[in-house]
Structure formats: structure tokens, C-alpha cells
């Protein structure tokens, strides 16, 4: 079992949503919601700690796979996150994605934290950062207005794929484990 302590936050995004915690939770774990705000991906998640987690492409292939590390509705969801649908990515160590839902007055504060078990290069982090603000804004819009935002998948930032290839070739996380 993966312990949270091994992971250090690399990206932390916060948004306030005018909705009940239960509604935000449902939007995170229900595929009819994720299809609308998460680049068309469908979530497939076993509702228990230790269960399996996947994000599926429209053709049914897995884009992300992982395990449920914390299933605490409607407050906290932690999953390990392995990008499976892109070349080279399955050789990188899985990261940890945590969603925290906290009541904040009439709203909820949703915090998404992407954490890593190794000193992940900035060029790889940037790739993830470009997508999350769109996803979270679209989730907010869906819950508040009933409509997601029109989001478009951009090409990864310059140097992103090269940084992934370099990491896969040199495997710096193996050296860190020894230290």
C-alpha cells in the first residue's frame, strides 16, 4: 500500500465552488460528470480504499490507472495516478492526486494536490499544470451553471516529451531511493 508521506506536493490548485460537498464529491467520482469536464474521460473507480481507479478514453482504453489510497466521502479522495495512454509515461513512478473538499461558508473549497515521490523535473510538472486549471474551472462551471466550459486539449509545453524520455532513460528515482 502506498503511504502518503513518501509524496511531496508539486502542484496545488484551489477553487471555490457554490455547491454542497456531496455534489462536488459526486462530480469527482461519477463518470457522467467527468465525461463533461475532464477532457471527455470517464472515471471508473471502486468505491473503497484499496480499490482500483481508472480514467477511460471514449474508446474504452485506459488513459490513467491507479489505486484508491483514501476514499472518505464527501471530504477526501486520494488516488495514485499513472498515465497509461501516452508513450513512455507508464515507466515513470506513479504520482498521487488528492482532492480535498472543505465547507467554506455557503461554498466549498476544493483543493487538488498533485504529489510526487521523486524530484520530478519542472518540464514534466508543467505538462500537468497546463490541464488542471481548465479541468477545475470546467468542473466549477458545471456544478454552478449546469454547463461545463468548452475546453480544448493543447499540445504539451515545449520540452515536455523530451524531459519524459530523459527521465525514463536515466531513472533518477532509483538513485534517490538509495540516498
Amino acid at each position, binding site marked *: 500500500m502506498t503511504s502518503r508521506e513518501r509524496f511531496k*506536493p*508539486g502542484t*496545488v*490548485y*484551489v*477553487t471555490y465552488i457554490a455547491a454542497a460537498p456531496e455534489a462536488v464529491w459526486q462530480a469527482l467520482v461519477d463518470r457522467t460528470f467527468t465525461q463533461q469536464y475532464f477532457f471527455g474521460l470517464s472515471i471508473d473507480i471502486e468505491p473503497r480504499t484499496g480499490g482500483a481507479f481508472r480514467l477511460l478514453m471514449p474508446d474504452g482504453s485506459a488513459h490513467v490507472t491507479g489505486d484508491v489510497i483514501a476514499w472518505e466521502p464527501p471530504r477526501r479522495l486520494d488516488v495514485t495516478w499513472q498515465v497509461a495512454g501516452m508513450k513512455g509515461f507508464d515507466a515513470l513512478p506513479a504520482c498521487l492526486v488528492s482532492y480535498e473538499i472543505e465547507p467554506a461558508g455557503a461554498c466549498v473549497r476544493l483543493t487538488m*494536490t498533485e504529489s510526487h515521490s521523486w524530484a520530478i523535473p519542472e518540464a514534466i510538472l508543467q505538462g500537468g499544470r497546463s490541464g488542471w*486549471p481548465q479541468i*477545475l474551472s470546467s468542473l466549477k462551471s458545471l456544478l454552478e451553471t449546469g454547463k461545463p466550459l468548452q475546453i*480544448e486539449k493543447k499540445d504539451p509545453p515545449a520540452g515536455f516529451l523530451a524531459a519524459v524520455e530523459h527521465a525514463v532513460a536515466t531513472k533518477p528515482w532509483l538513485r534517490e531511493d538509495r540516498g
Partner: protein
Amino acid sequence: MDDVFKALADPSRRELLDRLRIENGQTLGDLCRRLDMTRQAVSKHLAVLEAANLVAVVWQGREKLHYLNPVPIHEIAERWIGKFERSRLDALADLKRALEAKPGDDE
């Protein structure tokens, strides 16, 4: 949204956001070492940024780490920049970058 504009109106606070963009997850001490500002000033600016939700804070053990949170800026952009304008604006931004980079490249 007023909080976001007020927070961004100050050049020192924009500088702090730039520092976090370069290296995310810094402590107050980290940020002070690299800036020509007193610790109290940096601490005050960070509190304003945190209140505007432009900086998110994570406690790791006894360390308070600061992370750049661009989500409110993204929400502002979504309000006034629609899907169709975006590609045109991206093209203009690319052009601006290309033109401004040119003198440096020639040297």
C-alpha cells in the same frame, strides 16, 4: 474577484507569484532569501495573495509551503475570453514572443 485584482495590482506581490512560478512550494524563509524585502513585508504580501486564493498553502511537518494557484486567473480569463478568441489571442501572443525574442537571438 475584487480580491484577485487588488492582489495583482501590487508589483511586489506579482514578483512573489513569479518566484513561485519558477520554484513552487517555497517557505517564507526561501522567498525572503531571494528578495529585497523585509520578512514582515513578504509575510504581509503572502497573506493578501492567500486571501485572494492566488497562493495555496500546504503544511509539511512544521514547514509552511506556498504554491502558486492560477485557478482564479483562469476563471477571470474564461469570463471575458471565449473559446473562439483564444486561438486568435494565442496566435498574437506567439507573434509577440517571436518578435521580442529576435534581437536576443541575433546576438
